[in-house]
């Protein structure tokens, strides 16, 4: 296919069908909370087998890199997953994304439903390049979301350009200070885990930003993951004990596991024999809690799971990654819920 020139389909540095811009935000108001995000494309993640895999992501331009757990700080890069966005229901939020003119990225707040210009999908609005765009949106519904780049997504999301996005409910005046709820009038929890489960095909992690967008076969249809991770930690063994992933709780406590299917293939998460009370999905409370010992999920689904063990012990949580055609298990990531 011939690369078009000019207009929305103009090529840019070997990238086609992108729509660079950094316009002013329509109807910009003072935000209740703001986040500043930059880009890194020189990170890496060290796998349990000693292999280092290139990683891209978003940086927090206002602070030292702080992710949602994970703990993989790529040399020269940022945290993986990218720093979380955490807000309170009802807040007006600004997510300011700064991208230099040599690069092109967006932030799509997955599950957040703002105006077209603030949705972060380039061919419906613009891709951010050569400046800063401030995404403005209102946090209307408490729950679990995530954000990711929506440019050449089969590559950019695969490279790691995502982070958690949590909307907490407003505190109830009748609750003691510090009470944590999953959503307004929702269940109270003591311990929280954010498990963004993802699979990595290292063959794709050698590609350039615009790979395939001008045509040509770069294998973006043909996904062969080799690593299976939980919140930036290799699920082969590290996630079993990594303190940012494994849950440590005492008997009588309640955990809220925010499970995010952050990969492309379907997954099956099993809670090591524990029963989860699923109270919300995709940022919306369920009409009635669903009790289950496992969940099968597809890409980008989220499930908020209340877990209240009734016995001390070590429960090994498994996340199986399933081939989208055969359903065969391609790999398993594991972590633990330790109840003392």
């Amino acid at each position, binding site marked *: 296919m011939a690369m078009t020139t000019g207009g*929305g389909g103009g090529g840019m540095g070997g990238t086609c069908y992108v729509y660079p811009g950094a316009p002013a935000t329509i*109807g910009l108001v003072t935000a209740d909370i703001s986040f500043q995000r930059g880009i890194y494309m020189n990170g890496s993640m060290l796998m349990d087998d000693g292999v280092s895999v290139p990683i891209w992501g978003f940086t927090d331009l206002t602070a030292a890199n702080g992710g949602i757990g994970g703990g993989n700080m790529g040399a020269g890069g940022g945290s993986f997953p990218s720093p979380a966005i955490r807000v309170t229901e009802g807040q007006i939020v600004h997510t300011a994304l700064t991208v230099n003119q040599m690069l092109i990225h967006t932030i799509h707040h997955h599950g957040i439903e703002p105006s077209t210009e603030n949705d972060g999908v380039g061919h*419906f609005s613009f891709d951010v390049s050569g400046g800063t765009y401030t995404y403005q949106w209102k946090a209307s519904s408490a729950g679990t979301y995530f954000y990711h780049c929506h440019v050449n997504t089969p590559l950019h999301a695969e490279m790691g350009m995502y982070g958690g996005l949590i909307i907490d409910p407003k505190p109830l005046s009748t609750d003691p200070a510090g009470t944590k709820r999953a959503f307004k009038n929702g269940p109270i929890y003591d311990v929280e885990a954010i498990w963004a489960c993802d699979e990595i095909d290292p063959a794709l992690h050698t590609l350039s930003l615009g790979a*395939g967008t001008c045509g040509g076969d770069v294998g973006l249809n043909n*996904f062969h993951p080799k690593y299976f991770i939980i919140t930036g930690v290799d699920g082969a063994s590290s996630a079993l004990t990594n303190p940012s992933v494994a849950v440590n709780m005492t008997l009588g406590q309640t955990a809220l596991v925010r499970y995010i299917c952050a990969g492309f293939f379907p997954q099956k998460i099993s809670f090591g024999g524990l029963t989860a009370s699923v109270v919300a999905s995709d940022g919306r409370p369920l009409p009635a809690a669903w009790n289950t010992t496992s969940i099968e999920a597809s*890409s980008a*689904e989220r499930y908020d799971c209340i877990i209240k063990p009734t016995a001390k012990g070590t429960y090994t949580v498994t996340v199986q990654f399933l081939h989208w*055609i055969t359903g065969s298990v391609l790999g398993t990531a594991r972590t633990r819920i330790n109840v003392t």
Partner: protein
Amino acid sequence: MDRRSFLKVGGAGLASTLMGSGMLSWAPRSEAATISKTYYINDGIRAMPDGVSVYFKSYGDTATALSLPASSIICQEGDTLSITVINRLLKTHNFVIGGLKAGDPPLASTGNIASGATGKITLTIPTGAAGSYMFYDNVTSYNRFLGLHGGLAIMPAGSSTTLYTGSPAFKPNRQLFWIFNDIDPALHNAVQLNGTIPTSFTPRYFTINGLSSRPPGATSHGDPTIDALFDPRSRLAGSVGDRTLLRILNAGMCSHSVHTHANHMEWLTNNGVVRSSVWKKDSLYLRNSLGKIDSIYPFMSPPDAYPLVNTGHFPMHLHDEMSQTAGGGLYQFGSMTEIEFI
């Protein structure tokens, strides 16, 4: 009038029951009708987004039309379906209306139709059969995703706003089929050339209602016969309050995650089974090989917009992002359509 005293529907009357384009329009009747349709099993070539020509088979509307997918049918409980299928190809084929739920026996079948022969289905739709169905060829395991498939919508008798009796309501004349397919040209070529059928599949093209999307700047962007963003069979356009039923079928070999922007969907059924409660979801797990979902897109003002907006353009795309490509690259040339708030 006795419900069994069927009203014959033919000629211009079929315009409201057999849909080749746009949303399914539907005027409920107090009497049952006979719904007649003739399909022609034929074949042809279609260009993929990267220019590669791929061979397909279809249930065509005419003796020579390549209809991907087949024109859908909408009817109501109590109606009689009278379907004629003429096989114009050299191989034996059939036409099976799959069961409502996974594991259900087929609703009807022509049986095998030899080359040059004609198959027929005459079926009175029983009460309680309302729902979304796929019809397809199952003479081989792969004829379905070669293109021989389509959608059948059975409405509850007398209703224009419900999927099943008592379901959450959508607005009259606001329902769409979204039929997904995955294309491995190696398979299609093997069938065309009478070669050895591959034992594994690597899809390279991904379609919704037979088309892939074309982003702005691409040749054919905006052409409703080529660009899935603008295909009226797929494009989800409406104003606030235009609650629309999405009948989502998977003819292909891959499972998918159906992701809508701007609104969560109300998830009514999974593989034909009515869910015990309606969840609001932005991403839905569509199982491969005959997976089905029914949901309602509520067309609420995008809830997180600030300031409030009631217009805009957004994508519906599959979130298993491999499906958003063509030929191993060309992101944005895959299985996606547009949601337009007018």
